[in-house]
């Protein structure tokens, strides 16, 4: 296996150029290792070589981001490395933000695998942990050995394109991508351990941090319902009998668009549910219980609504990934908009 070529980015302090007074140091590239690079080189052994180190002042970077990025990217490009390492920045805020920013830029624009490291409270951590791998380090340079120990093996894996395991196995901060792995102890035992820690007021780590959900501003209401076109959408899996498009009973990979022009009522002979997550008997007997076409047709006839849109959209909401459902809806919403639909009734089971 050929040696992995690495370029490392560090700040003026770790390059031993100076402290705050030298924070405006312009980017400079030197051959080989500088400062912490020595420790990394030792950890890499014969597997990798740091061919160049780029030094940049934290103030210079943060005050001239676009320019600094361009200069550093050109420097990295000129060395054509297999891997780029930034930091580790420990708890130095501007350094952490610089590391995250430049690592993300190298990854996105030069398509080279990148790795950085910092303390969990470094502002750069929250900003970048979902964009690049950020190894969790201690909060000061006294944790350099610990940082190198975690970063070096992960760096080699990234450079070689090997499969990256779960965050707790590889040492990076959880980045929103859930990865399965096998623990030593079974779940019940881990639950008891966690409970004992929690009861004793000791620190423990949850295996799944609760998410924040983003919000969307509500749209203005429909002005004149008697003239409005209303469309029906459902996650309850209502499909024409026989499920012609084979929408899956769980983890749906697709949605269906079906024409109900002239259909006044959904019957046991014509419609069914594909959804495997609830007792299907009632929906199969009368799919209007999930997709209320019959009553909306009544409303249409009575002039309560202008018209029921001719197509309905359906998918199965059973264990279907949020990202998939989001993508389906983003796609068919475009059709709803161009068809001049005024409002949507979305039913779920």
């Amino acid at each position: 296996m050929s040696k992995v070529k690495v370029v490392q980015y560090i700040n003026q302090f770790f390059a031993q150029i100076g402290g705050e007074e030298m924070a405006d140091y312009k980017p400079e590239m030197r051959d080989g290792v500088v400062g912490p690079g020595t420790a990394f080189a030792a950890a890499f052994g014969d597997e990798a070589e740091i061919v160049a180190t780029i030094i940049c002042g934290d103030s210079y970077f943060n005050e001239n981001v676009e320019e600094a990025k361009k200069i550093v990217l050109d420097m990295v490009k000129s060395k054509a490395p297999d891997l780029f390492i930034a930091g580790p920045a420990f708890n130095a805020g501007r350094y952490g933000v610089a590391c995250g920013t430049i690592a993300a830029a190298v990854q996105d624009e030069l398509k080279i695998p990148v790795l950085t490291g910092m303390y969990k409270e470094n502002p750069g951590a929250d900003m970048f942990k979902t964009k690049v791998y950020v190894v969790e380090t201690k909060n000061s340079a006294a944790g350099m050995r610990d940082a190198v120990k975690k970063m070096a093996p992960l760096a080699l894996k990234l450079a070689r394109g090997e499969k990256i395991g779960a965050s707790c196995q590889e040492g990076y901060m959880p980045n929103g991508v859930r990865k399965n792995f096998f623990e030593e102890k079974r779940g019940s035992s881990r639950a008891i351990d966690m409970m004992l820690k929690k009861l004793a007021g000791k620190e423990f780590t949850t295996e799944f941090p609760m998410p924040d959900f983003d919000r969307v501003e509500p749209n203005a209401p429909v002005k004149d319902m008697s003239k409005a076109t209303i469309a029906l959408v459902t996650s309850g899996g209502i499909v024409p009998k026989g499920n012609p498009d084979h929408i899956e009973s769980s983890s749906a990979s697709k949605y269906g668009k079906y024409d109900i022009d002239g259909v006044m009522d959904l019957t046991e002979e014509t419609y069914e549910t594909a959804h495997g997550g609830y007792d299907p008997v009632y929906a199969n007997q009368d799919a209007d219980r999930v997709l209320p076409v019959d009553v909306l047709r009544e409303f249409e006839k009575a002039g309560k609504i202008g018209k029921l849109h001719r197509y309905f959209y359906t998918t199965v909401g059973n264990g279907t990934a949020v990202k998939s459902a989001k993508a389906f809806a983003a796609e068919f919403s475009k059709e709803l908009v161009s068809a001049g639909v005024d409002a949507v009734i979305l039913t779920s089971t």
Partner: protein
Amino acid sequence: MKLTLGYIDIRDIQLSNESKVENGTLYVSADAVKALVMEDENVASVAVDVARPGESVRITPVKDVIEPRVKVEGPGSVFPGMLGKVQTVGSGRTHVLRGCAVVTTGKIVGFQEGVIDMTGPGADYTLFSKLMNLVLVIEPKDGLKQHEHEHTIRMAGLKTAAYLGELARSLKADEEEVFESLSIKESAEKYPNLPRVGYLQMLQSQGLLHDTYVYGVDAKKSLSTIINPTEVMDGAILSGNCVSACDKNTTYHHLNNPVVYDLFRQHGKTLNFAAMMITNENVYLADKERSSDWSAKMAEFLGLDGVIISQEGFGNPDTDLIMNCRKIEEKGIKTVIITDEYAGRDGTSQSLADANPLADAVVTGGNANEVIILPKMDKVIGHLEAVETIAGGFAGNIRPDGSIEVELQVITGATNEVGFGTLSAR
């Protein structure tokens, strides 16, 4: 309540002309088992097969897995209210044929039965690949309605497990373990300095193939209540569901509930396992509110310091889970919840349908959407084509070389939420 479990280790199953246990081998008369199962006129045919760890065998669609047990001393018999008479179990002595199980399969009932591979990568995701399995392939008579079909298979599995368990009645146990749950007063007096920890088990109760039975009572019809943890060891709680094979609690999981066993093993040492409660996961919002209010009320009344909550299933039950957690936390009682995740095939979607910042201590059984290729097995017991329609499968997922592409969702017990497995995610 004090229950002694006598474990008789089974290292092999052999079909034979006589049913008995000898030197660690379970000999089964297939004819006797067939006759037993055929007592139900809804059964058109039944085949009996054996699947051993390491064999190139795939069993699908799996409905339930049951461990053979028999009550040797003490009131009642196993699976009270369902097979046995309604009588409180959980005390005395029970024998367990450890290392084996009855697995039911046959024509698919609904969408969410499972797969058990006895070897290969799939075997790592299910504890059932490590057991000697007696497999019943039960085909229903034509025109049988789904609710009746499920009932028929359920009863057949329980009857067979009880029949096999009976063979252990007079045997000498290879190992014994004693479990004793004390009354509230007794445990408080005996362990005044240990934290009072309870277990709240959530039971799936949403209708066809989503039901659980407690002493024969459909859990959806019950208010949340207290149960002695040793009662589950005699089959007081059993499965009528397949809520996606990966997180369905089979009857085997109920009999061997790891939260119960692990809490008992810490009881008197690091904690006081003060109480076990059960609650349901119903389809009406009012029921969810009522059941979770009740659980929180009980936890407070029982003076618990902490409650471990296990879920069954996913989707709308995530709301029951979060309600139970939040309401108990709001009483000042600490919770740890055990769940699993549906984070999409790439692991980036939100894992649970509901959330709350108070749920800060979570144990996960892993992401059920992760895709795995299960290689071709030499033998399939059951119906392979089921893998296209069961939850976690999809049309066309059986490849020309016989391997199948599926989500972990299809593997029975893969992401189990009573914490049986070691699979997790970060």
